[in-house]
């Protein structure tokens, strides 16, 4: 807290509050989206047709064509909102880094993880979205072909844990910040959230393996 | 020299100082408090038990009124108090409590219905009245006829101090923290302010004021073992004494507490013994019943302290790296009782001793606790001898405590005296103008600068200030403590005089630049010794036992010769204080009688 050296009249506005609401709502929306997304993609584990049927449904209903860019915008908006809190100046970054190292405090490190994963997701997520949305329709075969190319395998092996970590921590953070969990329930919730993150990473890995195993019909 | 002018300069920003300051600031006067710590760290916060006020809301306080409170206070003081002041105090206490409620104290309130309480190890039941629901309640504290101690859970002093400082911030009182007054500026008749040293930068600053208030708390830290905060080293009393004019009232009136934990001397409540806790010696055997067959551990605070000291002297103490101590045993009270009724005791033991009182013994010994003594003032809080100088709270000898203070009356005094003195001080300020004598200011600053230069430059020697202080503390603790006798007291006076000479040769071992804790102590070490000599000499001359002043060689209270108050002043260049005496009270409402604290002899 800075000590006021000048007397000034604070402009009366709730701008910080509205931005914080938006940050939370976009975050919560993206969490729900990511969970659904993972479950939908994982449908490939029940067979190529299962995934294709679901993908077709989303395209026929234009949810992919409209929803996709919407998610993209939400994704960018969420980044812009959350970035207000992330240090970009070297001085602040080094303060935060030193602070984290001094404190030995898990939740503080989790925030550093959130900030770092955010940067990676911004780039990789954008690439992923661009690639998928400019190459509709989505089919299991096309996804499998991409992954089997090698480059995308590495790409998704990086992106997957980044996203799941960010989503898991974000989920916990929203619950804490908005008082949905209390002191008494915090440790339990944290455990639950960790397991959830691990489960989603596991599903993701299984799905990637599944894509590798799909026989791709060479066109 | 940086000079700051104000209407009221309060030296000290604890409860008493801030309460006076609030009164002045609300009346429109410019007010500055100096504090050696941020105001909310003042020692007032440590008074956890509560403050007495005869509201009479709780079941066990029914029928209470200021008359009963007055009588308890006078009896408690062993008739050493000023009865006019005690009367004003008892009458104002309920108003002060309500005022604090108005300002935001979350006082505990009456909850109607049945509940249980412990006394003497036994459980009793009480029923709170429905019509009193939500009014300020009270708890029991030693030495009172009624339950009268208003409280907020286990942090009464803390909430009072925070609320008072909130009020001070609201009223525009400016607090200059880490600023220690090192001398008063006066011309022999009028006090004009103080010279202070900044404890962040080490720089000196002059504060000029129409009125100066000393509210620096007690001087427990001249004793080796004390429950007081480390800041209670008597700096206010020292600068008053250094004027050569202002007297310290009853310097020998010092209270001890039986159960300070070893080594830090944080006190654990007497509730431990009240609930059935026992004291054990080196053989883990009880001993209090041998000295006090009927009351044993439940005897009053001073009696228990005396027998504990006696028992340690008999070689029954438990040796430790911090000296001998005894054990307090509450294990048999059981985990349930300890975890609920004595929760703070459990926390203190866990946090500050690493001891689990449910399964382990608590190391305790008596420690200095309260300074009834202080800057002698009249009933308006105006100090004797200098116009424009006032004092309030534990720093003052106002004098409502006489030779023994009741539990809960210390916290009450801070805000009650603060209120009364505040009102009187505002009256004073309204009709008062002062001429600042620039020569007196210049001379004072020159003296203080020179003092500091001599200390930093080791011009008078290189005596280790800590060694000197420790030597002084040992003398007071061992010879001017709980039990006193002529031989020891005289030996203490003689030794303190030698140590006083040593204190004049103190020189810094560090460079003294900036905050310098060593310099801070070195500046006041001579003053501390003068104060110590007032205590020892005053105690030596007072050949009677009264309240906390317990002479083995004069066990009777002697109203014929000693129903009077000591006034100690220090003339420059002297090696002993000058002791004068005055009658304890002009108005006698309650004639001297038996305190009802057990068998005592009284010579009338």
């Amino acid at each position, binding site marked *: *807290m800075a*000590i*006021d050296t000048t007397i000034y009249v604070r402009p*009366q506005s*709730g701008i*910080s*509050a509205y931005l*914080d609401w938006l940050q939370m709502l976009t975050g919560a929306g993206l969490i729900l989206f990511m969970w659904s997304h993972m479950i939908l993609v994982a449908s490939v584990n029940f067979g190529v047709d299962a995934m294709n049927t679901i993908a077709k449904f989303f395209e026929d209903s234009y949810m992919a064509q409209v929803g996709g860019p919407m998610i993209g915008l939400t994704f960018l908006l969420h980044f812009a909102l959350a970035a207000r*809190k992330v240090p970009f100046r070297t001085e602040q970054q080094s*303060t*935060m880094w030193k602070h*984290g190292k*001094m*404190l030995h*405090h898990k*939740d*503080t490190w989790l*925030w550093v993880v959130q900030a770092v994963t955010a940067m990676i997701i911004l780039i990789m997520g954008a690439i992923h979205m661009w690639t998928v949305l400019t190459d509709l329709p989505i089919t299991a075969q096309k996804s499998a072909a991409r992954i089997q190319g090698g480059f995308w395998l590495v790409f998704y092996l990086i992106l997957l844990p980044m996203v799941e970590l960010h989503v898991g921590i974000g989920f916990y*953070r929203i619950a*804490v*910040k908005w*008082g949905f969990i209390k002191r008494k329930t*915090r440790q339990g919730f944290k455990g639950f959230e960790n397991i959830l993150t691990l489960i989603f990473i596991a599903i993701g890995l299984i799905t990637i393996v599944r894509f590798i195993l799909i026989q791709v019909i060479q066109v | 020299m940086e000079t700051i002018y104000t209407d009221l300069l309060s030296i000290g920003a604890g409860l008493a100082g801030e309460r006076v300051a609030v009164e002045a600031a609300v009346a429109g006067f410019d007010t500055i408090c100096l504090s050696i*710590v941020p*105001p*909310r*760290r003042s*020692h007032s*916060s440590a008074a956890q038990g509560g403050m007495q006020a005869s509201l009479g809301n709780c079941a066990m306080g029914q029928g209470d009124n200021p008359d009963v409170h007055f009588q308890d206070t006078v009896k408690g003081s062993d008739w050493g108090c000023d009865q006019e002041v005690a009367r004003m105090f008892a009458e104002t206490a309920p108003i002060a409590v309500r005022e604090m*409620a*108005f300002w*935001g104290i*979350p006082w505990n*309130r009456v909850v109607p219905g049945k509940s249980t309480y412990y006394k003497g190890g036994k459980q009793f039941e009480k029923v709170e009245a429905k019509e009193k629901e*939500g*009014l300020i309640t009270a708890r029991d504290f030693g030495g009172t006829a009624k339950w009268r101690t208003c409280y907020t*859970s286990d*942090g009464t002093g*803390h*909430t009072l101090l*925070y609320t008072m*400082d*909130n*009020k001070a*911030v609201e009223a525009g009182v400016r607090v200059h923290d880490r600023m220690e007054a090192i001398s008063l500026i006066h011309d022999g008749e009028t006090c004009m302010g103080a010279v202070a040293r900044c404890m*962040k*930068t080490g720089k000196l600053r002059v504060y000029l004021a129409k009125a100066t208030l000393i509210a620096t708390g007690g001087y427990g830290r001249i004793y080796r073992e004390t429950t007081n905060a480390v800041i209670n080293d008597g700096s206010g009393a020292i600068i008053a004494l250094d004027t050569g004019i202002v007297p310290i009232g009853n310097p020998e009136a010092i209270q001890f507490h039986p159960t300070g934990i070893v080594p*830090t001397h*944080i006190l654990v409540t007497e509730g431990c013994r009240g609930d059935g806790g026992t004291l054990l010696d080196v053989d883990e055997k009880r001993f209090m019943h041998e000295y006090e067959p009927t009351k044993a551990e439940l005897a009053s605070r001073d009696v228990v302290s005396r027998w504990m000291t006696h028992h340690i002297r008999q070689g029954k103490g438990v040796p*430790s*790296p*911090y000296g001998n101590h005894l054990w307090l045993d509450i294990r048999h009270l059981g985990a349930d009782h300890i975890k609920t009724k004595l929760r703070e005791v459990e926390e203190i033991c866990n*946090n500050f*001793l*690493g001891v689990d009182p449910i399964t382990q013994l608590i190391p305790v010994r008596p420690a200095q606790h309260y300074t009834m003594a202080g800057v002698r003032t009249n009933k308006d809080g105006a100090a004797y001898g200098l116009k424009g100088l006032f004092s309030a709270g534990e720093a003052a000898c106002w004098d409502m405590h006489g030779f023994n203070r009741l539990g809960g009356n210390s916290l009450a005094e801070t805000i009650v005296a603060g209120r009364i003195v505040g009102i009187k001080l505002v009256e004073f300020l309204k009709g008062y103008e002062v001429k600042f004598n620039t020569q007196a200011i210049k001379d004072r600053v020159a003296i203080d600068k020179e003092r500091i230069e001599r200390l930093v430059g080791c011009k008078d020697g290189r005596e280790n200030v800590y060694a000197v202080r420790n030597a002084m503390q040992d003398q007071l603790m061992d010879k001017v403590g709980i039990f006193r006798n002529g031989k020891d007291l005289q030996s203490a006076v003689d030794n303190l005089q030698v140590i006083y000479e040593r204190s004049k040769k103190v020189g810094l071992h*560090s460079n003294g*630049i900036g*905050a*310098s*804790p060593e310099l801070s102590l070195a500046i006041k070490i001579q003053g501390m010794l003068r104060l110590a000599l007032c205590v020892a000499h005053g105690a030596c001359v007072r050949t009677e036992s009264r309240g906390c002043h317990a002479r083995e060689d004069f066990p009777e209270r002697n109203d014929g010769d000693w129903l009077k108050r000591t006034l100690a002043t220090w003339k420059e260049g002297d090696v002993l204080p000058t002791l004068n005496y005055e009658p304890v009270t002009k108005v006698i409402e309650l004639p001297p009688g038996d305190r009802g604290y057990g068998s005592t002899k009284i010579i009338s």
Partner: protein
Amino acid sequence: MTRRLTFNIFRYNPQDPESVPHTDNFVLEEAERMTLYIALTKIREEQDHSLTFDFCCRAGICGACAMVINGRPGLACKTLTKDLPDEITLMPLPVFKLVGDLSVDTGTWFSAMNEKVESWVHTNKKMDPTVQEERMNNALAEEIYELERCVECGCCVAACGTANMRQDFLGAVALNRIARFIMDPRDERTEKEYFEVVGTDEGIFGCMGLLACEDVCPKQLPLQDQLGILRRQMGWTAVKQLFHIAK
């Protein structure tokens, strides 16, 4: 067997042009029931008279002795050496201005904070000394006391990532203080007035929820819970303001 403790203590006197920030090592024999108060006092009196640190009540009540103990902000008086390893590293609290060595200027910071959040009961009523006090439910009094227990030690601020990065952040201590007054019926401030104080990025919306404040608070104040409640309250006030129904 008694341990020999090594204290690595940060040293710097900003008033001394010759002083440079560095670490000094002091060795001390551990004694039973030793707290950092006992240890540091001993070091100052026996080894280095210039060592600067703050203690006041030494009983965990006043909050003066907060410092960074082996990486964690905490009250030194409340820290027993037996709970620490042989090597103890002591640093002054970050965020606050350094006075010297382990001593920092919390006074200036907190008095500014108290002015900023107007930490007092706002009322238009006049105190009448002749009438009985207003009644209050005891359970409510105890709830208020629970938040009032804060000792302004500064640990929550020093442990806060946001406060470390951003000078203007109020910190958990200020937010807890406001929560205390919101709870108190004697304070007549409206939700809009509270919102003006803490409904900003300097206040509750600047909090990133790292919860270090909750985890280091030596008084175990329910900071996590209070910050959550406050964010919701201020969030709703903002929504109500949008529809012009905020009081």
